[in-house]
């Protein structure tokens, strides 16, 4: 990078674990061996969470499934691979070697053993002997280990989560991160247990339970493992919105957020843009797996470069300036302004006349987009002559799409389906009504929220017309 430099400082101190940048390999196949982690560090990764070590296991073939959509490969991966199937001694020796070779990088070791205090004490001590920077407790693995009372079997019961973390904290001399499973109705509960047990940090999300699909030729589950298949851990770009929501839920929780406990974020991070979003919703370090499994260790270059450039543009000097920056924007329906109004506006210069907004609005939304002919008249679709032919007539006679703004509820479906960059805009149009939230309405005029007749009168009074 001769002649070019970044201003932003990407280094982090995550619960006392230093790292030159926030990007760590997540505990997964990419961090399975010393050779791999060594190569990842050479490529520029700031840290690696070693693939979980612990109880003895055996693996199967066809362990990775994937979800492809619309010609796009690996929008998600699913796996039934277990924790490391390499002998414990080999892993511990390589961890020590890697840490010695890379003193500036974060080497965190993920662990999962039987739920007995003496066994946890033993593994924690052995990890500490390697010189590793931290420990991640794998309470998330949803397949294979959970059936043996480990992984998500622990993460799904906050009491277990708390108990085991307490055992760990009894002997831990280096930072301990509790990794949470998303296969739970409220992610906040196990995170509070981690806080209560005195953990140094949490990380989320582990993988989601999933079945990738069914083979329509053989009627077997995909991927098929000797004619059988079952639930596996789901990860990759498709899970990112779920991860962001859970991350924000922890940040907003009085106990977890209030404790200022650092959170390591993961779940579908593929680009620096994803990374920036995780940081803004409160992640203090970032873990990546699926994107690396798709493209290799080299992707860290753009993760760092893109994040740096964005931070320079936005004037963020260091990562901690970014962390949690958008948390105050996260709210819920009860606090949204019911008087906020936006309408769709189509840029006719950019529109390519695919009519996707038209059919989406008319079939499935609020019927406020019209097809208008060149002479200004309203036309029905497919109204051309059966003997019409040729591109000139098809293109020149094609009607344009227009939003009847008075009838537009601003649902934003057309905006979402439009394939053209920057063609449909959601324009904020003053509704003329004073701001009011559902929460305020419930407090001030509860009857309106409970009785349709009262609601009707309220709407008439406020000039709220529903089409």
């Amino acid at each position, binding site marked *: 990078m001769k002649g070019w430099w970044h201003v932003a400082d990407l280094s982090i101190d995550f619960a006392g674990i230093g790292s030159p940048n926030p990007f760590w390999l997540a505990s997964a196949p990419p961090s399975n061996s010393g050779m791999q982690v060594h190569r990842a560090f050479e490529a520029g990764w700031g840290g690696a969470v070693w693939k979980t070590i612990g109880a003895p296991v055996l693996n199967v073939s066809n362990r990775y499934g994937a979800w492809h959509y619309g010609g796009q490969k690996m929008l998600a991966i699913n796996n039934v691979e277990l924790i490391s199937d390499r002998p414990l001694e080999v892993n511990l020796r390589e961890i020590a070697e890697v840490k010695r070779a890379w003193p500036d990088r974060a080497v965190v070791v993920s662990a999962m053993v039987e739920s007995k205090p003496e066994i946890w004490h033993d593994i924690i001590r052995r990890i500490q002997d390697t010189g590793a920077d931290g420990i991640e407790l794998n309470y998330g693995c949803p397949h294979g280990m959970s059936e043996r009372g480990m992984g998500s079997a622990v993460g799904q019961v906050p009491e277990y989560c708390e108990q085991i973390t307490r055992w760990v904290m009894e002997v831990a001399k280096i930072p301990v991160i509790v990794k949470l499973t998303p296969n739970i109705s409220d992610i906040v509960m196990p995170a509070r247990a981690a806080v209560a047990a005195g953990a140094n940090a949490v990380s989320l999300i582990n993988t989601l339970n999933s079945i990738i699909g069914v083979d329509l030729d053989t009627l077997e589950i995909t991927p098929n493992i000797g004619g059988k298949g079952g639930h596996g851990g789901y990860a990759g770009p498709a899970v990112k919105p779920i991860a962001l929501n859970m991350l924000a839920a922890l940040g907003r929780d009085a106990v977890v957020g209030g404790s200022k406990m650092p959170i390591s974020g993961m779940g579908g991070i593929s680009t620096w843009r994803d990374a920036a979003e995780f940081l803004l919703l409160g992640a203090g370090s970032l873990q990546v797996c699926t994107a690396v499994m798709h493209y290799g260790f080299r992707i860290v270059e753009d993760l760092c470069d893109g994040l740096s450039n964005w931070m320079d543009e936005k004037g963020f000097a260091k990562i901690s300036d970014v962390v949690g920056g958008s948390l105050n924007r996260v709210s819920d329906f009860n606090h949204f302004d019911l008087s906020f109004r936006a309408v769709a506006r189509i840029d006719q210069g950019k529109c390519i006349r695919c009519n*996707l907004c038209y059919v989406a609005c008319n079939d499935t939304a609020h019927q406020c987009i019209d097809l208008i002919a060149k002479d200004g008249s309203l036309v029905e679709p497919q109204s051309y002559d059966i003997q019409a032919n*040729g591109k000139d007539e098809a293109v020149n006679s094609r009607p344009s799409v227009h939003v009847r703004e008075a009838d537009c509820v601003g649902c934003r479906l057309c905006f979402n389906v439009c394939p053209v960059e920057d063609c449909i805009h959601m324009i904020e149009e003053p509704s003329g009504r004073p701001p009011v939230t559902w929460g305020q309405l419930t407090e001030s005029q509860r009857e309106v929220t409970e009785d349709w007749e009262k609601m009707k009168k309220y709407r008439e009074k406020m000039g709220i017309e529903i089409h």
Partner: protein
Amino acid sequence: MTEFPQSTAGADALGELLPPLTQNQAAIEAARCLMCYDAPCTHACPTHIDIPKFIKKIATENLRGSARAILESNLLGATCARVCPVEELCEGACVLGAEHKPIAIGRLQRHAMDFVYGKGIDLFRPGQATGKKVAVIGAGPAGLSCAGELAKRGHSVTLFEKRDLGGGLSTYGIIGLREPVEVAMAEVRMIEKLGVKVETGKEFGAGLSLTDLNADFAAVFFGVGLGATPALGIPGEDHIIDGLEYIEQSKVDAGNLVVGDNVVVVGAGNTAIDCATIAKRLGAGRVTMVYRRTENEMTAYPHEYDFIKREGVNFSFLTQPVGVHSENGTVKSLECVRMSLGASDASGRPAPQPVAGSEFFLAADQIVKAIGQQKPSLAAQLKLKTEKGFIQVSANFETNLPGVYAGGDCIRARGAASTVMAVQDGKLAARAIHERLVARG
């Protein structure tokens, strides 16, 4: 029907130019389709195939459904996938064309068609028999389309074809590089499987009269195409080869096709380009296309012109042949005169005028003419009303003789003749004939 002609010499040089798409290529291309609503590609297609529908079926690997969506609108989908000027029709109207690459609609259509023909899947059955009989004259695209649509509606159709093989220009007049004979043959077989009785070697006028037909059939459809290549009217014309025969031989008798070393092709339409392609690909050292106007007036599609330039063919514009010079029966040269463009003529194009004293010789050992086709002789034969020499028909494709219908190139008084337009004519005429037969009970 007779057997396929066996391709022999030159089969590779004139083999189908575009390779089939793999399933993966097709799926990726299909996924790129935006699935426009009331799509402009469908509007632009003369047969109005629901293109987004068939493309999305390729994306979901429902190839049988995809093929059906195509064939419901266009029974000759396999031919049209190959020979349609898609740049002027569906692909030319694609909304992605302005700033991106339009969807490869023709290639995708071929993918779906190759699937069903490759697997021998029959998608349609003859309709419940109505007991009505219809005669169709000419087994080209218009006739096949009309016959097939009538058979789907349960009518008993006999298709008379003067040639040995059905398919019309698809079989005889489009070079194998764009459409192999097998493709047209498969479509003829599909029409036969719908119950259409195909009688080849039966020429209308030669022992088959309208009176005969009217006695046996409730309606008659003529899809007879156009006539032979007109004469240039110059000395030595008997040494000039008819371009349509040149193409025909390259398709059904390639082993005996003689190609010169220095070939001159007279004309600048799509057929002329096909002739030049044959000559170039089958070993001519030099091929020159001679046209009396300029590239601005030539009737070949722009994409065809681009293609032939890349083939390495030379052009001599503003050039009109005035005589063929030969020695001992061997062509030596084509004598030409330079032209200049004057005021617009009846066709709306500038009229070329000879430049006095500008005669010159173009060395040539083979001269091929492709300067259009003569108007249908059928009109005079049956005393049909005409429009610019073409058979005049009503909106229902009925001629001035009640119960006598026509479609395809023989009625194309307006617009450029094309296979897909002929297919649409046949389809709409079949609807009209059906209405007529049903209404009469």
